[in-house]
């Protein structure tokens, strides 16, 4: 009887361990993708409910070329929409991680990153980049104007999220570049005629 009891306990333990391992394996992949912040909420929290109107930055050929150098791929759009108030601008940009696009919201204030958020994540893994322990690294970073503009600080990666980390670096750099274009341009050039 004692032997049977031990066998039953062992069997129960094995079953419980299997269920636990299954939960541990499945849970992260289920929790990765999702919408974490809507565009409206992003703008609300950026501008403290005084959300400015949408503005448009039209890109010249050489600026598209710089954007291409930052992303490592052609930047297909002729213009980018953003919102800005004083020296603060907010950008919603997308970049592909491994297979699917990641939607980022980036806030730049006086040429430095004030906030970067993952608005929507569509991959099955690598979603750790949305957490503060990663995004806080970007705060205060500016642009180093090389042949291909880069961030002027180092970002530590996350094991298992290399491509997502790379995408976030590119988008942060791109947002800083666009912010610089907006702040450098004369007001009359910002809303030029459509091409």
């Amino acid at each position, binding site marked *: 009887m004692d032997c049977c009891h031990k066998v039953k306990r062992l069997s129960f333990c094995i079953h419980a361990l299997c269920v636990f391992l299954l939960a541990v394996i499945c849970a992260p992949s289920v929790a990765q993708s999702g919408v974490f912040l809507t565009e409206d909420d992003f703008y609300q929290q950026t501008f403290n409910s005084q959300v400015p*109107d*949408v*503005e*448009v930055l039209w890109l010249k050929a050489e600026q598209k070329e710089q954007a291409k150098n930052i992303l490592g791929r052609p930047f*297909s*759009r*002729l*213009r980018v*929409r953003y919102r800005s108030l004083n020296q603060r601008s907010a950008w919603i940009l997308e970049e592909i991680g491994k297979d699917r696009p990641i939607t980022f919201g980036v806030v730049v204030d006086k040429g430095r990153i004030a906030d970067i958020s993952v608005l929507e994540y569509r991959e099955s893994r690598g979603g750790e980049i949305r957490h503060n322990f990663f995004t806080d690294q970007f705060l205060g970073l500016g642009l180093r104007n090389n042949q291909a503009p880069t961030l002027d600080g180092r970002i530590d990666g996350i094991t298992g999220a290399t491509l997502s980390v790379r995408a976030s670096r590119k988008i942060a750099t791109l947002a800083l570049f666009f912010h610089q274009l907006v702040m450098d341009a004369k007001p009359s050039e910002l*809303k030029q005629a*459509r*091409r």
Partner: protein
Amino acid sequence: MPNPVSSNRQDVDQALQRRIIKSKIRFTLWRWHRRIGILSAIFVLLLSLTGILLNHTNAWRLNQASLPQSFAAAFYGMTPPVIKSTSENGMTLSQLDGKALYFGEQAIGTCQGKLVGAVFVDEIWVLACSNEVILLSPNGQLIDRKSTDASVTNIGRCQSNVCIEYEEDQVQINLDTLELAASIGHNLESMPLQTPPPALEAKLRQQYGSSITWERWIQDLHSGRLIGAWGVYLMDGMAILFVLIALSGIVMWSLGKRRNKR
């Protein structure tokens, strides 16, 4: 006392027995080796040739060369794509199989969902797919794009503006900012989707077949997948036969070597 003569005779008889058995084994192996060889010869040739091709797909650009439409239809059951188009201002915008977008003959990517319609206003093309609005320049360059929360069912001119319709709502699009504002329910002037002109249709169908490359076809031929799941089992069976040929060949060689030594 054992008789040395009869003892020797027994040894000779036993040796002879062993030689006969080994000969029979060798003969049996040789017979089956030959049968399997004949049976699998054509597969050896096929796998060797496709293997050589697969080793050089980059150099010979097999990963870029497209399979003809007829092959794609025959081997992959690819039905001719459904093409929806809309034309205005001398230009045709098309979508193939609810995916690839074409500006004339030029592929311009994809959009989220099926093409609902397009309008040409103020020197800008405004396309609506089920879940996206796209702006194109007069020569087909992407200006901007924006996802929609709800499914778009119609797009058209509403007085001097552009409006899109969802199931129950109609909204006006600001082409500068892509912001949507409530509209008062205008009658939309939309261009209906139709099949493109025959010449363009033929060119688009030909281009669409290019999603399958020669490399893909050769890989499927090599693995047997070209004829379905049974093709894979057939190739597995052939691989087992190749193993049997190799083993039988080794055993025959080994038996022959020992015989030659004697």
